[in-house]
């Protein structure tokens, strides 16, 4: 395990590259989901205000 983390001396480089990739990928996923959830929320609010003014 120690040896695996050490990566033949390249550990710092390898793990920072993979760690950064993980961060960017997760951020992308969260950002896309938030954009979708936000669009749904806005639409719902719009719908409610529309039906509210009709009644």
């Amino acid at each position, binding site marked *: 395990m120690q040896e*695996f983390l050490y*990566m*033949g*001396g*390249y*550990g710092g*480089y*390898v793990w*920072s*590259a*993979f760690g*950064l*990739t993980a961060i*960017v*990928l997760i*951020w*992308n*996923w969260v*950002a*896309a*989901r938030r*954009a*979708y959830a*936000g*669009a*749904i929320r*806005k*639409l*719902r609010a*719009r*719908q409610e205000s529309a039906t509210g003014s009709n009644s």
Partner: protein
Amino acid sequence: MWTWFHKLGSPPHFFRISGALLPWISSIAFLLMVLGIYGGLVLSPADYQQGDGFRIIYVHVPAAWLSMLAYVTMASAAGVGLVWRIKLAHAVAASCAVPGASFTFLALATGSIWGKPMWGTWWEWDARLTSELILLFLYLGYISLRNAFSDVSKADRASAVLALVGVVNIPIIHYSVTWWNTLHQGATVSKMAAPSISGSMLWPLLVSAIGFTLFFVALLFTRTRAEILMRERRTKWLTEVLEGT
């Protein structure tokens, strides 16, 4: 074929299909990425010249590939939207920019992390690196140009022109290692002859690249769905979709 194409171009149809496909695409993308990364970090042997440092390619190459794929997708969709005035195409183009910019950043950053121990420098004004940096600026320019318009259809048209002009950079990035005598190494996988990499190192790279690509498709679908919701907010079909959920 044409009717199928036409149907896919209609926002309600795309919204339904993409919604049904998304869970599948995202789970397959996740599995392939885990498998590719595991293969790259654990199963693949160390390189005879670069030792374990070469393992960075398992994230660097897919990120660099996606930075270009996302741009080509964005420019093609923008072109289709501009010529045939298809609303969905503009929604797709707009959805490519943020993932594309982040993959470009990732390709530059992981390349830089690899460059430090291998080349002895974080950065070099080399043709490959410089053209990839220009790609990042094209994405950022596209995003800020879109944000400068409050009217969506004006933003669509102006940003489409920028996306199409910038597409000349893509062959420059791809062929930069052949056209110029660069520090960046030449192609490893996409050669007409046999790739210059052994099978035990190659398969995790391909699996990882397919996983990353599917992940991009999942991001693109999710963002396009959000764009459709915003653009079609006044339509009846959307009200029905919302009531159904």
